[in-house]
């Protein structure tokens, strides 16, 4: 057994240096995935780098341009922030769905993204919102859209010495809203069997002028589904448009069968969720007068 080291750096540069200097490092944010994986013997890092003492990782900044959310901000802090919930209700719901109240005290949007599970709840919601990842590395900052961050189950685009610093959400246009729904067998404490997020903008007449639809737990990574968005744009979310959204979401899904559900089930349910989420987003956008 290799000896495990622990470090809690207070700057990005220090953290990147620690990560670059170890042959088997892991970043610790909320730990709600990492410590479980270590317990079950799935990961045996040589170095655990707690990044919660780095100021940028805990930053919450809501302004005219939108929201910048430190990657390690705990879920409970975000869900308690009424201003964020008013602008990004679907994302906040999705983040709040991760685990128990106890997990909410620790889990973070950055951790949810970097764990790179296809079933991560907040990821489809961030994709629907058009969020960008701000990544720090030895060569400075770079930015990638959330939908491009994960490359497969447990895999993402971060280099060994890179750190996800924050997530940048554009400010939604007027008469816009988002929604996220997931399916789990119980009411809490499960991993999503399927998930769908919809963000949309309506015009004065209630016609959808822009939309983004993302689905989770039905493919190796969360997916942006342009065909589902196209089904919404130009419609008032009539039955035909909703059926087309469901169909597009199901068609985009490429699920597996496992202990949480069959591929057939996931494919069908993700369409149902996309349709229902679209209706919730619509009613939220309409309420925004």
């Amino acid at each position, binding site marked *: *057994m290799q000896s495990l080291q622990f470090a809690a750096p207070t700057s990005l540069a220090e953290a990147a240096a620690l990560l670059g200097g170890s042959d088997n490092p892991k970043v610790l944010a909320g730990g709600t995935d990492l410590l479980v994986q270590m317990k*079950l013997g799935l990961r045996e890092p040589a170095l655990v780098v707690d990044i919660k003492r780095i100021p940028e990782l805990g930053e919450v900044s809501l302004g005219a341009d939108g929201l910048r959310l430190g990657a390690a901000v705990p879920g409970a802090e975000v869900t308690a922030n009424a201003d964020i919930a008013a602008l990004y209700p679907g994302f906040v719901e999705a983040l709040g769905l991760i685990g128990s109240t106890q997990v909410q005290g620790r889990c973070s949007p950055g951790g949810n993204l970097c764990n790179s599970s296809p079933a991560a709840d907040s990821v489809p919601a961030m994709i629907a919102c058009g969020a960008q990842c701000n990544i720090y590395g030895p060569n400075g900052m770079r930015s990638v859209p959330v939908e491009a961050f994960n490359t497969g189950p447990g895999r993402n685009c971060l280099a060994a010495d890179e750190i996800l610093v924050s997530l940048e959400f554009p400010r939604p246009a007027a008469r816009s809203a988002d929604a996220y729904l997931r*399916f789990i*067998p*119980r*009411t*809490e*404490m*499960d*991993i999503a*069997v399927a998930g769908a997020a919809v963000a949309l903008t309506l015009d004065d007449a209630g016609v959808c002028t822009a939309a983004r639809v993302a689905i989770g737990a039905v493919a190796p990574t969360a997916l942006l589904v342009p065909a589902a968005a196209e089904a919404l744009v130009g419609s008032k979310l009539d039955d035909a448009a909703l059926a087309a959204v469901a169909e597009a979401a199901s068609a985009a899904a490429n699920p597996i069968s496992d*202990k*949480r*559900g*069959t591929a*057939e*089930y996931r494919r*069908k*349910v993700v369409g*149902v969720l996309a349709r229902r989420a679209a209706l919730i987003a619509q009613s939220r956008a309409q309420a925004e007068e």
Partner: protein
Amino acid sequence: MTSDMTVKTQFRHVGSRPVRPDGLDKVTGRARYGADMNLQGQLYGHIIRSPHAHARIKSIDFSEALKVPGVLATMSGADLPEPGEALIPGAEIEMKLKNVSPVIMARDKVLYHSHAVAAVAATSPRIAAEAAKLVKVEYEVLPAVLDMHAALAEDAPLLHDDNFTVGIDPPPEKPSNVSVQIEMAKGDLEAGFAAADVVIERTVNVPMCHQAYIEPHACVAKADEKGRIDIWCTTQGPFVVRLLVAEITGIPQKDIKVTASEIGGGFGGKTTVYIEPVAAVLAKKSGRPVKIVMSREEVFRASGPVSDSETRVKIGAKKDGTITAIDSDMIMNTGAYSASAMFAGVLFGTAPYTAENIRSKGREVLTNLPRVWAYRAPGAPQALTAVECVVSELAAAIGMDPIEFRLKNAVQEGDVPLYGMPFSAVGLKECLQAAKDHPNYQAALGENQGRGVACAFWINAGMQSSASIHVTPDGGISVMTGSPDIGGSRASMALMAAEVLGVPVETVHPAVVDTDSIGFCDGTGGSRTTLATGGAVIQAAEKLVEELRRRAAAAWSVSIDDVAWLDGKAVERCGVGIDELIEGTSPVKDGAKVLTLAEIALTAGATGGPLTAVASLHAHNSAPSFAVNVCDVEVDPETGKVDVLRFTCAQDAGKAIHPAYVEGQMQGGAVQGIGWALNEEYLFNADGVLDNAGFLDYRIPVASDLPMIDTVIVEVPNPLHPYGVRGVGEVSICPPMPAVVSAVNNAAGTLLYDLPMSPPKLLAAIDAG
């Protein structure tokens, strides 16, 4: 106790709801459970488990592990005596040691994934775990059978080549994977079905599940220089642990003391041993105390889960609602060794009904899965689920209300069930009526909603118990038993002692003590503790009252017959009859002498010595319980998700000693049954590896899954018990599964009998129309 005894009906304490005596320790975190004990110099045991579902053990090499600094002992099956064919003497149920010992440590073959193969003890849990990885076990992998149908196939690989099915005449000459089979019948089945207007036949599958107690198994064992073993562990039965550790390790029972910790749930799963014999052997070999705590993953993989079953049930009824015949055929999975409760399923599945023509068959099947163990009313939920689902369908088919249908066929006093013992007074009809009268049953249902009803039976156990009572010099009462308190039994012991002694319940201090400090007690199981251990407490308290009267009589130089015991005091009768005094029809005479319990206690040293009383009994006065559940659900037709909207339990408790804890048993059993019906199941992969060995994917109900669980305590006193008590802990898990299944099928328009009714399965059934 005789059948013409009077059952007490007026109580001062029994039936009240005092705060439980152990409650304060539990809400403050002071209560000490299995893993909360640490001894100076203790080592930590780690068990090495099989990566294969079926394999021959070719060799075990500890040499590398022993080189690790801090590793002080190792063991394997070779350290345990050869079990032979002997039955375990004095066990609660008939068990061969060869079906128990190899569960603790495999011998020759491993028969399921995670089967214990060897163990190491080291100075820290981390060193023990690392050293365990260095133990080299060489296996010859064998083909495995991972479900009952595969095991029943003609050419199936055999788990035990010496297993010849018991219960076949003449005995078979070929070994098989059927350990035992049974057929019970009465009446004329063919004539019964011929007389029926409607016959329905279904096959109902109930999945393998787990008791899912929150506290993992944990123990600490130490051995002294003379070889005497002292074990602290979480268990439903410290005397069971003493017996099994002795049988498995060869250490005599007289050299073993077992102290039961507070127990964090068991539900039947802690009525046996897994780690205690290992800790005892490692402690003996190392000379140091050894602590073993199972991980949650180990608990799921390698303790005793609960049999899955497949039951084909065919029932016929006349249009007037009379059930004319019941035919049931069950196969029940026992895992790697014979241990299932198949007999109970065969015997009890039809017990609620008066039907004259019944046949019930069962086979117990061996598979390369963990050896199953008891779970709350073992065997009955599986059998009753099958029967009750068909009964509900039959009622609907003849257009009769499902409760009316059951009332028409319900057993009562004098009826003789398939297992042959005539019922004394039982409360099935009363429970059915209570359910029918409950607002739940009258409430309107909306779209996609459905209601299910089911009733159930459990036999309840009596068995052996001991109690002792001591009085402190200032009149406090210590009540000791050997029955671990798993659901509030200390509260009921205190109430029963207070009732007999006429003292405030707060002055009674009940305790569960170690096996050296009290006479033998069978385990807390079979819903027997309040009845049997409570019976011992009542008898001991009665003896104490007699002794207190004797002391007062001596003090007053009168005959003991002239002393009555009233409200915690000795009172001189002065000619008034004892019954009149007790019933209050005649007052205590002016000037009659009085001595309080505390006054007698204070002078006990001068009047004959300390005040103590002991009672031991073998209770033959248990009586069955019946229960009825009503369940309302809503089904999402697009996802197959089931929401339980409302749930009501009516159950015959005989007499509820502490009604709040009776309700707790009803509610807890209901929710376990709901979980089993909807989401709980063991999922094995193609290699026999459990795929959901954690609370994340072994999905027990969480708080937000449920409504309040309404309860109606029905009290039809057990005529054989002085207070009318019946067991309450187990029958509660029997009706919820069929109630949920019927409710879901009624809501969704499906006939799904393949449990659990998980969303993918239910949606497929809905979509199949």
